[in-house]
Structure formats: structure tokens, C-alpha cells
């Protein structure tokens, strides 16, 4: 009997380890031999821990599992009260286009054999037969853009590094994933680490870099463990080694260290403060050498591009947003989790159809897209298709594709204040608009809350100073959530509200 219990952090947080232990005990008690595989998560967080049992027909899902549900597993799966049928047939799964996440949840994350059996290493093998320029051209042609937030074309970044003079170059994978409501990087590293390793190795071939770093936030102990194990296995299998090797580094808990230049400072052992650009990291990055800094998902999307060809990847998407994007749906939501799909679904389709509205059942008031620096979108923005330019057109951004959903009880002034407070806490403190501005922002919103209407123009002035004046996007984008809350939900900012309550 082959049983899958996810090792994914979300599943573990919901009790997966206890369930796994109970399964082992129960099987021993019954004298049943089982093969227990700790896999990644399929991304349906409301069903976690989602246990799967391999059958001839496919993998049957049972969830959300508790320890009490374990004995029933051994009495005929189909009759289990929490049986969900074939996981691949669940509507959440069927609707997706899984290119980057194709293997996540499916394979044993630390089995290279499993990895290869599911199409792994095809991309790297193909890249090995190509020239640097050809690999770069393939990635450029695919239309892949950075999934870390800024959406910069990955191929162009690689080209800059590839053509930069210098013997030593580096590939740095940004796995700091600090945005609220995002977890795609973690799920990928926990569920299919070899994809990231393969993507980085291809980046190494394309640029001539011999060394890569994965900078993982300290809050991801499982991802760190799995990545370290995977790197070891890849070394043993000579996938990594003299030609290209990877080192895992752990962050120290600063959101701003997800910003690429702060990340590089942190990697070098310095204070995690933002560096002015230019020089671009692509020319003077880690230790002053040409460096590719890419998000986990950007790098993990490369193997499939190489394996299936740029045209296949590019075929998905809309406008200048090509390929697929792993949406991360969270907040006050009925169905939360990871949903990989081609660009182009509207915000309304995502929130109402896929996520099923709020968990409380109350109307959706706002959706924050793109993490703590993303705008709050009201229902009137729901026709906006999911794409970089499309969201920019609505005064927003897609960032790392995290969506946080709020029902009508949300106080948008409090959310605006939270945005400023977040910026004040997480600011690296280098530039004035962010260092002092965020603190004054909180104070000014407090004045508005107390009914000081004169403080509203001061807040908008402050936001324009922060937006155009800040050195990096932390201070520069904090005005998005603040101003979107103020613009779309002015009632929450009027003194009348205070008086009425």
C-alpha cells in the first residue's frame, strides 16, 4: 500500500506529521506493509492534510485528515468518509495549467528517479547541447518575466550577465518570499526541489556562472532542509559539482532582504540595506561580480521551457504576460491555496469562481494583489485580466501573484495604516522618504482617524514623496495600498465614520 502524506509546511501546520505517524502506527498494528511517501502539496490548503492512496485507477485523495480519520484508511478507501476521489479530477486540479508545478505534490521531492520519471532533467540535458547564446535566446523567446515582483524579462537579464566581462559570475536564487499571502516558492522547494536546481544549472550554463546560492528565509525550515538534502543528492549524482555548484544560505528575518540588492549585501555578510542602482546586479552583483538574481519561480520555470521549447510556454498567457503564473490565494477565502494558470483570468474569475468568495460568506470588499506593497482592488476592478500591464493600468501590480481577500467588515483605514506600519517596521532605513516617511504616515493616518481632515492632503503628499523619492520599491510601493484604500474606500477615511460609530 503506497500512501502519500504531504511534508509541505502548510500541511504540517494542519497536522500532517501527526497523521503520518498515526498511519505508520496503525499499519504496524494491523500488520499491513505500507510505503509512506512524504510528498509536496497539491496546493488545496483547505483539504490539508490531504492524504493520497495509490490505486490502479490513480491516486485517491482523502482530506482534510485528522488522526482520528486514520484507522478508516485501512478499511477500503472508497468508503472513507473523507474520500475525495481521484485528486487529478478535483475541479481545482482540473482547471489548472501546471507547467512549473507539474511535479509538485506528485513526486517524492527527494527522489531523483521519481524526478526523472516525471520529465525532470530533460531541460538541462537539452541545454547542455546548446550554446550560451542559444539558451539565452530560448528563455528570451519564451517571454518569461521575473516572478519575484518586478516582471523583468528573464532572458534579457541572463543576456546581460552572459555578455558581461568577468571570469566569475553567480546565480542567486531569491527564496526570501516575504510577501504576505505568498507561498509558491516554499511549495516548490518543498515539493520539487530538483526543478529549482535544474533551472539554476541551466542559468549557470547560459551565463557561464559556476556558483549559485539559494537565499531562503529562516522562516522556512522545511524548505531549507529539503533544499539542502536535494543539493547533496544532486552532487552525488554529478548534476552539481565542479562545473556548477549550489550553496544554501539562510536569511535572518528581514523582509527587505528579499529586495535583490539588500539580499546581495546580506549574502556578503553585510547589513541588509538596499544598494543604489546602477550598478545593476547583472553587472556588479555578488562580491561585485556579474550576478543573476532570480526568483524561485522564474528559475523553476526554465526547465519546462527548455524541455518543451519556448513556443510551448509562450503559447499560454495574454499580452506581454506569457506562460503561466502560480496564483496564491489567501486571506478571508473559502478555497485558499496555489493555482497555476495561464495569465489572463480576470480578478473576478479568480476571486469568485476559483476561490469561491470569502470564508465568512460575506461579500468581498477588497482584494490586495501582489503582497504588502500591492493595491487594494474593489469589486469594480474585477474585470481586470491577470497580467503585468493590465494590473499596472489599474494602479496596481501583480507582484509575486499573492491575493489576499477581505470581506465587507474590513476597515480600509486600518489596512492603510497597516501598510505604513509594515513599511516602518521593515524599512531598511537607508533612504529618507521611507525611513521617516513611513513613521509619519502612521501618525498622519492616526490624525485622519481622529477626524483631522487636513491630514488627508498631507497623506497624499507624503505618498507622492515616498513613491517618487524612495530608493527601492518598499518605500516606493507602500503608497499603493495606502492610496488605493483612500481612493476606493473614502468612506472609511471620513470623520463621519468615527462620529457615527
Amino acid at each position: 500500500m503506497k500512501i502519500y502524506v504531504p511534508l509541505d509546511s502548510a500541511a504540517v501546520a494542519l497536522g500532517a506529521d501527526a497523521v503520518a505517524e498515526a498511519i505508520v502506527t496503525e499499519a504496524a498494528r494491523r500488520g499491513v506493509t505500507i510505503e509512506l511517501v512524504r510528498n509536496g502539496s497539491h496546493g488545496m490548503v483547505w483539504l490539508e492534510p490531504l492524504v493520497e492512496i495509490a490505486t490502479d485507477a490513480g491516486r485517491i485523495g482523502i482530506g482534510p485528515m485528522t488522526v482520528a480519520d486514520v484507522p478508516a484508511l485501512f478499511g477500503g478507501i472508497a468508503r472513507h468518509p473523507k474520500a475525495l476521489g481521484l485528486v487529478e479530477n478535483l475541479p481545482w486540479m482540473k482547471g489548472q495549467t501546471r507547467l512549473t508545478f507539474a511535479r509538485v505534490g506528485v513526486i517524492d521531492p527527494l527522489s531523483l528517479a521519481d524526478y526523472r520519471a516525471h520529465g525532470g532533467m530533460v531541460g538541462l540535458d537539452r541545454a547542455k547541447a546548446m550554446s550560451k547564446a542559444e539558451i539565452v535566446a530560448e528563455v528570451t523567446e519564451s517571454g518569461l518575466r521575473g516572478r519575484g515582483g518586478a516582471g523583468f524579462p528573464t532572458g534579457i537579464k541572463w543576456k546581460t550577465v552572459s555578455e558581461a566581462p568577468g571570469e566569475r559570475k553567480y546565480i542567486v536564487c531569491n527564496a526570501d518570499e516575504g510577501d504576505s499571502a505568498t507561498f509558491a516558492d516554499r511549495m516548490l522547494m518543498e515539493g520539487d526541489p530538483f526543478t529549482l536546481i535544474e533551472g539554476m544549472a541551466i542559468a549557470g550554463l547560459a551565463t557561464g556562472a559556476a556558483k549559485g546560492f539559494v537565499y531562503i528565509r529562516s522562516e522556512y525550515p522545511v524548505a531549507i532542509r529539503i533544499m539542502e538534502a536535494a543539493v547533496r543528492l544532486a552532487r552525488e549524482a554529478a548534476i552539481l559539482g565542479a562545473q556548477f555548484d549550489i550553496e544554501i544560505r539562510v536569511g535572518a528575518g528581514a523582509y527587505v532582504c528579499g529586495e535583490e540588492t539588500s539580499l546581495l549585501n546580506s549574502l556578503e555578510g553585510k547589513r541588509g540595506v538596499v544598494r543604489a542602482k546602477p550598478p545593476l546586479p547583472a553587472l556588479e552583483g555578488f562580491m561585485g561580480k556579474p550576478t543573476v538574481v532570480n526568483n524561485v519561480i522564474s528559475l523553476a520555470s526554465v526547465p519546462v521551457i527548455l524541455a518543451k521549447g519556448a513556443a510551448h510556454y509562450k503559447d499560454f498567457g495574454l499580452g506581454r504576460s506569457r506562460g503561466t503564473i502560480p496564483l496564491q490565494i489567501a486571506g478571508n477565502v473559502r478555497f485558499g491555496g496555489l493555482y497555476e494558470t495561464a495569465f489572463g483570468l480576470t480578478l473576478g474569475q479568480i476571486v469568485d469562481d476559483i476561490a469561491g468568495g470569502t470564508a465568512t460568506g460575506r461579500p468581498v470588499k477588497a482584494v490586495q494583489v501582489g503582497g504588502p506593497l500591492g493595491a487594494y482592488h474593489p469589486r469594480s476592478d474585477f474585470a481586470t485580466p491577470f497580467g503585468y500591464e493590465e494590473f499596472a493600468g489599474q494602479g496596481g501590480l501583480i507582484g509575486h501573484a499573492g491575493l489576499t481577500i477581505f470581506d465587507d467588515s474590513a476597515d480600509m483605514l486600518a489596512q492603510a495604516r497597516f501598510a505604513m506600519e509594515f513599511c516602518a517596521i521593515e524599512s531598511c532605513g537607508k533612504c529618507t522618504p521611507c525611513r521617516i516617511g513611513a513613521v509619519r504616515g502612521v501618525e498622519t493616518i492616526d490624525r485622519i482617524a481622529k477626524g483631522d481632515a487636513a491630514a488627508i492632503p498631507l497623506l497624499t503628499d507624503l505618498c507622492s514623496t515616498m513613491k517618487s523619492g524612495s530608493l527601492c520599491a518598499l518605500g516606493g510601493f507602500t503608497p499603493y495600498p495606502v492610496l488605493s484604500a483612500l481612493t476606493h474606500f473614502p468612506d472609511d477615511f471620513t470623520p463621519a465614520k468615527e462620529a457615527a460609530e
Partner: protein
Amino acid sequence: MKDFIIPDRDFGTPAAKSKRMVTLTIDGFDVTVPEGTSIMRAAAEAGIQVPKLCATDSVDAFGSCRLCLVEIEGRNGTPASCTTPVAPGLKVQTQNARLKQLRRGVMELYISDHPLDCLTCSANGDCELQDMAGAVGLRDVRYDAVDTHFKVKNTSGEANPLYIPRDDSNPYFSYDPQKCIVCSRCVRACEEVQGTFALTIEGRGFDSRVSFGAKTDDALASDCVSCGACVAACPTATLQEKSIVEIGTPSHSVITTCAYCGVGCSFKAEMRGDELVRMTPYKHGKANRGHSCVKGRFAYGYASHKDRILKPMIREAISDPWQEVSWAEAMEFAAAKMKGIQTKYGRNSVGVITSSRCTNEETYLVQKLTRAVFMNNNTDTCARVCHSPTGYGLGQTFGTSAGTQDFDSVEEADVIMVIGANPSAAHPVFASRMKKRLRKGAQLIVVDPRRTETVEGPHYKAAHHLALTPGTNVAVVSAIAHVIVTEGLFDEAFIRERCDWDEFQDYAEFIAAPNHSPEAVEILTGVPAEEVRKAARLYATGGNAAIYYGLGVTEHSQGSTTVIGIANLAMLTGNVGRRGVGVNPLRGQNNVQGSCDMGSFPHELPGYRHVKNPDVRAIYENLWGVTIEACTARVRTSCNPIPTRTTSRRGWRRWNV
């Protein structure tokens, strides 16, 4: 040489070194500057001052204050002009309504966290924050600041946890955190200019504060060496000389030279009336380029010390008290006494010694007095001790008794060999400039028995430390030459073109003998042979290689020989005759070169021309109208024996570069 206390113009960012020129348009004016120049500096060169606070041209651009934002046609946003380099054809606007609004917005934030006590502030009139508030036209601060760093008590009357009291622990300057704008200029100056890394920014966001290391450290307990670079860089009253706090801001200044070490830093003596208020390193000083060490910067108490002799005094005998007299009387007295001694004891019974802190004019006149008036060659100089081996050694090898480079040259060195010197202690400003280069990747070889701070310090470490037994300089230098010759690392083209190939072959045969090998001399020198070999290879093949040597070479019985050996190394490897290389003595005083050039040694007339040579004497005899004594003095003040004739001199004496 007086100038008014308008601070030297600050171009915002250091000058770019590229030879390629770029033309762009700033506010409608065409400006041509070297590639790599910042837009801010290009604007400054065109006479356009872009508002700035975090930039200053002694340190690299940082981009933190966000006052210097500009617009560039065809580019998004408002890039900072200090961190954005010029590019051909750029069209830059430094002033318009949007930029004005932005700068006011930034300034309003600054002032919301700054005490408004300008009138009683010690930096009043000498504060860049004040200047910038004026420049951007800030008229109003609309924030009701709750959190500040300057209020002792917060709005509810409790002690403000963000308030940090003034740190007066350093004897020369104070640190007053309530006035700090966290521009990091001090931190960067301590790192980039001085290389001590005593300062850091502690905390994040609004909690970011300048700190002398750990939270518990005050300035005195920290690694700070009181060089004053941070104080010079600070745009506000936060880091300030205590003398300014006590006396007030200066009204004018005089350019002068530091009276301490052999670096010879230029200073501005900043005055208020006749009172010296502070000494600030002079930006245009060629030795120091605006940097200094604690001695010149703060230890200037001698300038007005009560022990200073301000009037001529005489006394008949050592047992008599000093008597103040007029200049005329003093001169007559001295002349009569000298004459009397000569009459009684003979012409050679008097002599002079000058200091190498004297100017060229002074030392010239004193040796002339000796030769033309006392009619003997009994002149000597304190540089006898530190410099005569250099004078002799380099004179023999290069034909001129001078070091080959200026101090700027170290910025272009790739390998730096320091022999018998500890510049960190004895030539601190040169050490800072050298360490800056080392932090950029130049390699260091130290030949010194001691493991000094020059061997290893913040962010640099010698690739090779040849910790030789004292007295074995010649053996080590010869062993290095042995490796270069036997391993074929010499620069044949250079030797053929610039030296004497036949003499080289003679020398090569001699130095290649096994008794000069690192292995053979190891027992004498105590330096592992392999280390010597590696150091030799690095010196010969690591790019521009420069040798800096000090009194550990010259103040030894084999001083001249070692200097000759050092010159040989440079010639062997082609490391003479361009920037970034050379043979560089680090001297004991700031005018060693000049005082020797002027003829302060007994055997040399000005210009190192031997007094025994009748043609040379004839020149001065004609000029001065006297007969010059052909013998050198019998009374020698020297402690430096005649250089021993040893190995490495062979065959190299007539090489000219």
C-alpha cells in the same frame, strides 16, 4: 595665503578616472566629463548645484537622502543624480516644479525629526541641512511628529526611548545623536577614507542610528583612532570638533603643512581672529587629498602653547637664565660667538644641523651660511638618519636620490610591498590610502620582523608576511631577486630598453648563485623559503608592483645596500617609470627630500653634486663669491656608517632608468 571660510567646493561624488569623455546636456547646457562621472558631479562642473545631503566628494555615492533627484528625458521616474552616471546625449533637468515638490517633501520629513534650535546650534552657518532647507524653499512642516529622536520627553511626558544623549567621551569631538540625519557620511568616511570601520549604522528603519560598534561602546571605547574623517564628512552639528562648540565657527583660514610625520599633509588652519579654531585637512593637499590623522587634525596645542618661544633670547652660559633681547642684538650676539669660536678653535670648529621639517628655502640658506660664511662643510640634517641610505642607494642605481612616485600613485598599484615600515602607525594617511587600494583588491607583501597592524586589518590581509630576523634585509631582498632571475620572471624587454643588458647578465649570474637562494638564506633570515618564492612571484607577475620602505631599511648598517637591492627588484621587473609602481621611501619628516635636495649633507652641494668635484664647486664659488672647502667635515653627526660593500650592489651601480 588667506582665503575666506567658504568650504571648498564639494562636487558630490569623486572624480572619475576614465580618459573617455562623454557629452550630455544638463538644464540646457552641454557638459563634457569623463565616463563614469555622476550626473551630480557633471552638473557641479557646469556650475549647477543639485541639492544634496548624503553625497560628498570624498566618498562614493550612496543615494540615501533623495534630495538630488533629477529628470532624464526618455527615462522613467526621478533617478538620483549622485548615483546615476552620465551617458552620451542624456538630457537632464535638475529643476522643475515636480522636482521642487519632491525635494520639499523630503526636506519636510527631515525637519520633522530635527530640533529647531539653529540659532543656538554650534554649526549655525556651517550646516548643510540648514543650507538645503533654504535651497529647496521649505517654509512649513505640517507633520505633528509623535516619534522623534530629538525630544527628551515624549508627548505624554515620559522619557523618549529614542533620545540618545550626547557622547562627549572623545577628547576632540562630540557626537550628538539628536541632530543626526542618518546620511551615513561618517560611516562611509570611516570605512572608505580612513579604513578603520569604527562606525556603523545600528538598527533598521526609523531606529537606524550611527553607532560606535556595540550599543555599549561610546566613541572612546570604540576602535576609533580620532582621525576626524567622520567629523569632516558630517553635514550637521552631530559630529563636531569640541573647539567649535567652545569657540564658535571660524572666520578665515590659512593653508599650512602638518608639522608631524613624513607624509606632510596640507591643512587649513581655521582661525577666528588670531585664535586657531580647528585644523581641517586641505582637500587639495597632494599628499593627503583631504584626509588627516589625529596628530595634525587635533594635536595642534603646540600652536599656542605657553612654552613656545616667541621672542629671541640669549644667554652667556648654560647656567645663566635666558634673557629676552631684540632681533638685532640676538643676531649680533650669535655672529660674534660663532666667529669667536672659529678664531679660537679653527674653521672646522663650528657646524650646523637642520631639521627636515624646515622648508627648502630655510635649509638652502643654512647650508649656504655654513659653506659661504663659516667656510666649511660642517652641515648636516636629521634626514641623515632616515634618508642618506636612500640618497646614496637610489643615486647609485637610478641616478637621482629621490623616491620615484607621489602618494597618489598607490591608487594604481596592484601589488604593494612594504619593507621595514609600519605606515598604519608612522605614516597614517599614506596607510589609509594604501588600505583603500588593498580593499579594492591589490595584494600586499610585508617584509618586517614584527606582525604589525600593516600586516592585517579591517578587510585586508597581507598575502605574504616575510617576518625576517632583524639585520637580514639584504639577504631577503637578494633571495627575492634570485627567484626572479632563476625562475625567468624578469622583464627582459624593459631591461634591454631601459637598463644595461651586459651589466644585467653579470648581475644575473652573480645573484643566481645557489648561496642567494631562499633555501640557502633561510637559516639566516628565518623566513620560510617557499614564502619568499611566492612573494617574489607575486611581486614580479602581479601587475603594477610598488615598493614602499621605511626606516626598517634605512636605519640599519646595510641600509644603502638594501636600498640598492630594492631598486634592483624594481628594475628587474620593469616596475619603474610609470604610475602605480616604483620605489618609495617613507620618510621620517615631511621635507626629507627637500632638505637633502638643498645640499644639507656635508658632501653634497645643492642637487646632490659632490663637493669634491671642482666643476661643481666652481658653480657655487661664482655664485656666492667665495672659495668652497673641498673636504667634508671631520666632525660627523652621523650615526650611519659608510655603506658596506655587499653583494647586491655588484654590477648595478651605473644602471640608469
